[in-house]
């Protein structure tokens, strides 16, 4: 039955593409277009939830497109990690789509042809789904290209000066990363004669170690550019902030995570062991620190968020670089948490822009009074991102730190310290934005945008004393006629609330989610479930033997599964506990947080 359900997996790619075709046909009817797009994504989301449910217990399942068997045909693989990523990405996309539709309906002077937005957005979704499902390297490349091409269009929507400037950098950098990836694919094909990832997992191990290293590093560089890890992250804060808010939101949430996903696959499936772990850890540390220092210098909220995005990619690479179940499980949890939180923050920034007319903190003020709703919606994900205890950001970071402490190496300790410092600096950055944009009075702002002043005037419904120039007279004259800028509509606030709530639900559901991501991590590090699903048990045995050989060569393979599940550091909970492990992991580490542990356990079904 499960097999039958999972064979619907190609629909996760197909549906958005067909929906895009439909949306293109409805270009002249905006409302029908919106309806078509939103319903497509909803159906896709439902399908992906089914996929997740199907793989929840069974693990990896392969789908052979067109009935061609594994090493020859195109394979789509659904395992726990990819199913989880699919569900989260579609949930995010749905929220952003509703938001963007509402924005397009309410004020169309955002500088963009709205008609092209929806189909392109669906194609982006198709690319993302394809990348998550891809069972061979070239299909992964095609998925990347689909989503990148769609993102080029979305980033330069409207073709205004700043967007074209940002778009040029973005396109050139993306194409270079794709070229590097493609070169790596060509060389891998030349060396092994296959591009199927499960097949590669078996065959790459037979190559000369130096050749392996070259291929490995080339793939990592290609994916590293997409994931925006430190030395390769320069393009991101340069290009993301100029795009419209919904576009930036979905880019920040998804595109870099697709890169992280590809890195995870490379590290676990294709090149297991700890050959580049030190490199990964160094890169992770630099990404965290440099990214957050960059965020400190920024004045525009979108740019601040872009830099925190880069910085927090470091956390994910950190967990991956430990290459044990604890670290990888925490990485998966962190990816899920971060996608949601980062997207909701960008959406709230869009609300701020819509309300105040700018997202530059130097020109913002008084928002907490003007719109308490926006303030709350900003505050929760901001604290979540910074990792304040009850939130999922805290749980993810504790999981990572726990894994780092458990690893007992100097580099891991450096990372632990680095991640705590980064967390504090993130808090500082968020508090800076908060105090300026939300807490200070409008009168203290240097050049408040007219919209903000107007909103304040209408809010206070009396003559604003600090309005510039003759604003007093004008406001008086206009007061009866003009109600000032309207607050955000339900279509904008609704999806934002939904995302913030989703981010909060990860706190409540942290237990099941953590145990799920740990199981996904166990599968990926063992490699055998994936390979067995694609190529059958013989190949899986071969792959298992490769791991033993790795150990003979002095490369540390993934640790035993028995002592690395949830509750690794708490022998009392029992390493063998499959059922009751949920929620104990992050909570047990911090004695001062009984409430949060209770939360996590209370959420267990």
């Amino acid at each position, binding site marked *: 039955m499960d097999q039958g359900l999972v064979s619907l997996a190609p629909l996760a790619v197909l549906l958005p593409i067909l929906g895009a075709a439909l949306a293109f046909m409805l270009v002249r009817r905006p409302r029908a277009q919106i309806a078509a797009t939103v319903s497509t994504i909803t159906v896709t989301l439902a399908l992906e939830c089914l996929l997740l449910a199907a793989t929840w217990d069974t693990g990896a399942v392969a789908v052979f497109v067109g009935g061609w068997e594994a090493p020859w045909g195109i394979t789509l693989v659904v395992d726990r990690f990819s199913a989880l990523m699919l569900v989260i990405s579609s949930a995010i996309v749905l929220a952003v789509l509703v938001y963007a539709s509402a924005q397009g309906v309410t004020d169309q002077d955002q500088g963009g042809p709205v008609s092209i937005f929806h189909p392109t957005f669906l194609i982006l979704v198709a690319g993302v789904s394809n990348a998550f499902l891809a069972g061979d390297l070239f299909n992964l490349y095609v998925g990347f290209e689909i989503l990148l091409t769609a993102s080029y269009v979305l980033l330069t929507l409207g073709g205004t000066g700043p967007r074209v*400037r940002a778009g*040029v950098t973005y396109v050139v950098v993306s194409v270079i990363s794709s070229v590097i990836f493609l070169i790596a694919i*060509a*060389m891998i094909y030349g060396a092994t004669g296959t591009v199927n990832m499960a097949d590669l997992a078996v065959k790459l191990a037979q190559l000369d170690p130096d050749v392996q290293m070259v291929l490995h590093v080339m793939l990592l560089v290609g994916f590293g550019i997409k994931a925006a890890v430190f030395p390769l992250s320069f393009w991101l804060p340069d290009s993301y902030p100029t795009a419209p808010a919904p576009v930036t939101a979905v880019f920040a949430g998804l595109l870099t995570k697709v890169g992280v996903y590809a890195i995870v696959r490379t590290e676990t499936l294709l090149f297991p062991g700890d050959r580049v772990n030190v490199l990964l850890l160094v890169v992770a540390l630099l990404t965290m620190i440099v990214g957050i220092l960059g965020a400190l210098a920024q004045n525009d909220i*979108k740019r601040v968020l872009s830099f925190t995005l880069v910085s927090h990619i470091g956390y994910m690479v950190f967990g991956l670089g430990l290459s044990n179940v604890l670290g990888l499980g925490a990485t998966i949890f962190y990816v899920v948490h971060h996608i949601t939180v980062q997207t909701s923050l960008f959406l709230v920034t869009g609300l701020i822009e819509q309300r105040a007319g700018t997202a530059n903190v130097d020109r913002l003020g008084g928002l907490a009074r003007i719109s308490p709703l926006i303030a709350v919606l900003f505050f929760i994900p901001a604290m979540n991102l910074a990792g304040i205890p009850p939130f999922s950001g805290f749980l993810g970071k504790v999981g990572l730190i726990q894994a780092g402490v458990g690893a007992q190496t100097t580099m891991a300790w450096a990372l632990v310290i680095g991640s705590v410092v980064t967390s504090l600096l993130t808090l500082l950055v968020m508090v800076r934005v908060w105090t300026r944009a939300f807490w200070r009075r409008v009168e*203290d702002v240097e050049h408040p945008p007219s*919209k903000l002043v107007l909103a304040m005037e209408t809010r206070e419904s009396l003559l604003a004393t600090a309005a510039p120039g003759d604003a007093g007279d004008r406001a008086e004259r206009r007061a009866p006629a003009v109600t000032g800028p309207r607050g955000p509509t339900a279509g904008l606030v609704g999806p934002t609330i939904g995302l913030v709530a989703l981010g909060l639900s990860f706190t409540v559901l942290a237990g099941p989610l953590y145990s799920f991501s740990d199981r996904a991590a166990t599968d990926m590090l063992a490699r055998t479930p994936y390979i067995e699903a694609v190529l059958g048990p013989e190949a899986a045995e071969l792959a298992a033997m490769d791991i033993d050989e790795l150990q003979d060569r002095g490369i540390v393979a993934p640790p035993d599964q028995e002592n690395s599940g949830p509750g690794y550091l708490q022998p009392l909970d029992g390493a063998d506990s499959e059922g009751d492990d949920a929620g104990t992991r992050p909570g047990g580490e911090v004695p001062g947080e009984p409430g949060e542990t209770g939360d996590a356990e209370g959420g267990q079904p």
Partner: protein
Amino acid sequence: MSVNIVLLLVMGVMFAGGVYLLLERTLTRVLLGLILMTNATNLLILIMAGAPGQAPIVEDGLEPSAYSDPLPQALTLTSIVISFAITSFMLGMIYRSWKLGRRDEVLVDTEDVKVAEQPSFDAEDDAELLEETSEFLDEYEDPNADYEHATAINPSTGALPVKHQRDGSVRVRSQVGRQEKPIRGGRRAAQEPEEGEHPVGSSGHDDHLPDEDERAGSPRARPPRFPEQQRDDRRQDKRDDGPGARGRRRKGEG
């Protein structure tokens, strides 16, 4: 696996040329560089196919090694299509960039420049506040009047005139604001730089990310809904023009 040395050399030369062109600042050359590099990659995939042979259609009595490998050809085809799409998109973007800024170059991110030029001293965060020593201050006397002066002084341009209002608030008049002239011809005209003068995105007042006031100036924008409000916006934007806007401060007593 036999390798065709000529193809290999051609590929190497194409990569070298592509990388060289990519390092240029001119967009057209960057595009040419990308075309060279993607084609060199296609060539690499073909080289990886090994020796050429029969068309991969099954014939009786032929060894498997006699066929040429069809997969790299499929891969090349796909990547040719992709690079074609991206090339055309880049061409469109370069054309747009040329239309907007009359510059065929990679442009500087003005926001980056602004952040880089930002002084480490931030008046709002770092200025010292004077303590209120007397309990019997006049109601309208501001213990931090000096603070207003301190923050009103822009280190690069010197002091700006500060005017004390009757109600105790302090108002800083920016010099730029005074020289402002009425603009005719709408915002589009004001935004469009002179030919060959300014790169995109650095046309004077555009020294921050486009906010809504400015996005209204996009060519696809509708006419402003409230002409009166729009004019007010323009004046507001004009105030931003001056150097070191950070130093100036308008502060009410509240």
